[in-house]
């Protein structure tokens, strides 16, 4: 099993007691720019957020990186045109994505309910499950 001193694996995705999920540090050299560190999250969130930020006209630059694959956090760097702050831009992007997800959820729900009515689910999901798999017939090395 795990080495005795190995950290618990859930520490990769569960915030520690009192740990802040987000840290914002404003860029000192570039105007309207900030680097936001999001802890205990990975590409799943980062890439999606970056994609949404890039679609916003106020955002001049958005990129993310996971500095080390063993360190469970990512950094998003955002520069805006000054009409909104980078933090606000990120927040808007998230809100927009949540909206997209909810509408998608509703659509999925509708689609699934249609399929239920059609009764497709009653089909044999496992194909030819009545015939045994190849390994049950004949001898193999375990028999010797």
């Amino acid at each position, binding site marked *: 099993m795990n080495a005795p001193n190995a950290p618990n694996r859930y520490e990769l995705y*569960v915030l520690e007691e009192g740990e802040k999920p987000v840290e914002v540090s404003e860029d000192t050299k570039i105007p309207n720019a900030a680097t936001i560190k999001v802890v205990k999250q990975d*590409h799943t969130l980062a890439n*999606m957020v970056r994609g949404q930020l890039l679609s916003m006209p106020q955002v001049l630059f958005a990129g993310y990186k996971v500095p080390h694959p063993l360190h469970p956090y990512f950094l998003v*760097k955002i520069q805006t045109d000054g009409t909104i702050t980078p933090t606000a831009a990120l927040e808007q992007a998230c*809100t927009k994505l949540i*909206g997209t997800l909810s509408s*998608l959820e509703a659509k999925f*729900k509708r689609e699934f309910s249609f399929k239920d009515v059609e009764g497709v689910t009653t089909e044999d999901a*496992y194909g030819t499950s009545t015939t045994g798999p190849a390994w049950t017939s004949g001898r193999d090395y375990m028999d010797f």
Partner: protein
Amino acid sequence: MQVNDLLEPNVRIRELKKDRVNFVLENVDISFANSLRRVMMADIPTVAIDMVEFDTNTTVLPDEFIAHRLGMIPLVSTNCDEAIRYSRDCTCLESCQNCSIELILNVACHESRTMDITSNHLDVVVRGGFGWREEVDDGEEIARRSENFGHPVGKNDPSVQPVLICKIRKGQELRVRCIAKKGIAKEHAKWSPCSAVSFEYDPHNRLRHTTYWYETDIKKEWPLSANAAEEEAPLDDEPFDYNAKPQKFYFEVETDGSLGPQEVVMKGLTELQTKLANLVLGLKTDPPELDTLGGDAATQLPPANGTLPAQAAPRATGWGQEASPAGWGGAAGTPGSSAGGGGGGAGGGWGTSPTGGGTAWGGSSGSGASPPAGGWGTNTAAPAGAWGAAGSGWGTGSPPRNNTGWSSPNPQTQSGWNV
């Protein structure tokens, strides 16, 4: 991208079976589609055997070999969010009925033939059988479990082949006690509800996200995928549109039976919303925490530990009614916020799952390859796998090939910023 914004995302289910769903997702960004894929593979909780105590093992396989095999057996995990706690959130010391399922396996061969020990021999212990090591009161989780919660998938169903654990001969015996726990695939792939998720876009390779190696004739040597029928083939003399973005994504989500395909997809969408909601919450609660130490907003911070259903319940009623004084979106009245309200009512919305913060946090795993790289049905073993990179346009990887550089749409730039 601009095009994506104008069009509403759309979904069409092409096939729905007991263990799989095939659907087409349209008008979303590739990063969005990929996040959905990733979240379905790696962030949805299920139960799986996590600890095994060996009483007798006289089989040819060593203990750890069998323990590993037992862990991989899919167990029915319907409504896992509410039906079981994470052990780390539980008040018990090691395991109790609220955060685990106990199974026993007790098989001996007395005949002169080879006998199969399969998942059908695993029996869930009804409480009071073996006896828990400590007395813990029943949580409300117990009542939310379905009848066969924690049973091996397909047990007592003749149409489903059981999972072979070991073969024994006369005189051999296997007697073990297993503790199944709740977890997600980021911790171990055995907790993934998906056996495969295939993800494809641009079957004609119009976007040139991949390059096909060929001997003499590219068309003969690279047969088109079945999804090619969904899109028009490009003309031979068609100029390359370097601004084009993938629009249509072909998914097939195949589950191992622990959860139904519908539950996997819906939970995946909810999970993504939870992640985003927690990010927004983190952004919101940052400043107030500085001046007014504590306060409601601060306590609402996703408490990673402590699945307090009581706390989750009020959140279920709607968008952060008490989450933070400022409310959620600065962007009131965007289509996003109105649609979100609807979704919240329907699917449970974000942050409604009793597991709250617990599930919400997904950390990067060492296994993480380039996220959008998808590939042909990436396998449970590699949740972030970038399998068929060479594959024929099947989920050809795009942005961050380079994990360390700022991910950029063109993976070649090793650490260039990307816009």
